[in-house]
């Protein structure tokens, strides 16, 4: 029972990280029908940027709420800027091209980001400082919960709830939903589609940046090519939930995180990826558009 509850906590932690990254995939897909393969690499990039910002400004010794907020805000800002740049340079010129051309462009952009990270920070693993978050540990009935886990769960819940209300209650959110449903009709209603896409990339990249920093502080070791693995898992989460659907991405992320934790806790780590994809394919066989996905006509 202890293992179960412990893996439950771990699973929710990983799951919220997947969910944060999955939101970036699902929003871009919802609006542009594009699998943004470079998103995972942005997440990895964020971890490195955050580490450098922390080392440059605070010298790796300071642990304070203020310092953490500055690191997160600055990294999110830089990564959001790179996200917008990515859209401008690699995706905007291809908006009228065949859909798969944009996929290749996204794969190319992923390579560019990944290898830029390698050239800047080197090919070796970098270690996050142990005092990035306080090393406080709580023990409740045999289950260990770290301060980092509480931060991850707390911050990502706030961000996800905030995003949900942003999409459903604000004017810009309504515009985003309108563009996702029908770009041409949205344009006729006076919505600036280019600007909405820019906003999507800012939000998605910033959420991915937060996830990247959390991944760094949770697992400690970061490598230039880790973005592919986290990106793929998050993308699978988005697909499970029904891609293009924001609550679906959150649900898919949490579900995948819990599932992964249970597999690694009870069965084995060697087959973890296999179980992930067997689950995905099983879901797709019975619900071809994901758990919360709606049946939409394929745009040709």
């Amino acid at each position, binding site marked *: 029972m202890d293992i179960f509850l412990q893996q439950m906590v771990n699973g929710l932690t990983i799951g919220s990280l997947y969910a944060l990254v999955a939101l970036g995939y699902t929003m871009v897909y919802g609006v542009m029908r594009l699998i943004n393969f470079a998103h995972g690499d942005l997440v990895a990039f964020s971890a490195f940027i955050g580490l450098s910002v922390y080392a440059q400004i605070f010298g790796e010794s300071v642990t304070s709420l203020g310092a953490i907020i500055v690191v997160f805000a600055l990294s999110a800002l830089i990564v959001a800027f790179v996200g917008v740049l990515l859209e401008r*340079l690699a995706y905007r010129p291809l908006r009228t091209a065949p859909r798969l*051309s944009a996929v290749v462009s996204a*794969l*190319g952009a992923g390579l560019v980001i990944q290898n830029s990270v*390698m050239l800047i920070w080197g090919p070796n693993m970098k270690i996050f400082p142990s005092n990035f978050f306080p090393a406080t540990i709580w023990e409740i009935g045999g289950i260990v919960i770290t301060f980092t886990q509480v931060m991850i769960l707390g911050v990502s819940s706030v961000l996800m709830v905030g995003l949900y209300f942003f999409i459903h209650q604000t004017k810009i959110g309504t515009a985003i939903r309108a563009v996702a449903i029908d770009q041409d009709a949205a344009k006729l209603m006076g919505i600036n589609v280019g600007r909405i896409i820019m906003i999507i990339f800012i939000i998605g990249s910033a959420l991915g940046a937060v996830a990247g920093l959390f991944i760094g502080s949770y697992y400690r070791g970061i490598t230039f090519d880790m973005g592919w693995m986290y990106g793929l898992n998050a993308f699978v989460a988005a697909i499970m939930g029904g891609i293009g659907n924001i609550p679906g991405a959150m649900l898919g992320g949490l579900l995948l995180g819990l599932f992964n934790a249970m597999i690694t806790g009870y069965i084995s780590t*060697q087959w973890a990826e296999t179980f992930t*994809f067997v689950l995905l*394919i099983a879901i797709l066989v019975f619900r071809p558009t*994901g758990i919360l996905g709606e049946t939409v006509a394929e745009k040709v």
Partner: protein
Amino acid sequence: MMTKSSLIALFVLVFMGFFPLFVDSAWLAIGTTFLVFSVVALSQDIILGRAGVFHMGHAMFFGMGAYTTAILNVNFGLPILATLLPAIIVPMVFAFILVAPIIHLRGDYLLVATIGFNIIFIQVLQNDVFGLTGGPNGLFGIDVVKLFGFELSSQTHMYYMAFLLLGVTLLIIRNLDRSKFGRAMFYIHKDEIAAQSMGINIRYFKLYAFILGAGIAGAAGSMFSIQYSAVSPEAFNVTQSIMFFTIVLVGGSASLPGVLIGTFIMFVLPEMFREFETARYLVFGIAMILTMILRPRGIWPVKFGTIPDFLKKEVK
């Protein structure tokens, strides 16, 4: 009558045929690799370019062929020639079993499902299932091909075997283009809904393309394992699959010269620029983006009219 493109094709084939006579063994190895990967890229093109099925797990079928030959030869001692047929059939069977339940999925969902198959395949190889695959190190010491007592073991022999394989593949694709299956795929690619309302069974033809592509990739895999006399999992991982996917789209989907140019760019150029090891993939990424922006349909796209050339010929 010779058209311009068939003249170019003839020139390329003759050039490739005499290539081994004036190069050293390092170049001969690169040439052989080019031929083998061309075959895989062409088989990916049947699925992605001709039938229009989003498929990003093709290295799996390539690997199945390679591992079938390796397992049958190393573990069971079968001669290489006897492993060729199983190396073609095993990927075909798996293509049917795996893809048939999900072929109706929307494009992007199929894309991620095929990536998933490839990842599962790699985990099966790495975990040494039934003690057959040799785990992360793979299998070593694959035999040479013996034909009527001759040992076909030199680089030149390898090259011409791969050349023969490419020739057969081109022949299959030519016949495919002129057959009922090729026409059906062309119309499915052009307009799925229109094709369906004309009575074309979309699921059937997409699956047909998948199985055919898997079989050809399996044959190339067998050749690959003979060339290196060893197989290991990382030669067939998702990165390789993405490579084949990219080759088709950068070169030009459903276009023979396009796919061959794509293979040249993705496999031969990196061999020539080994000294720029670290920055290589950065340049590659930029080149991929630029190619797609400047030529969204690939470097040498196929010219699709309303009526394809191969149909006009038959109407005359």
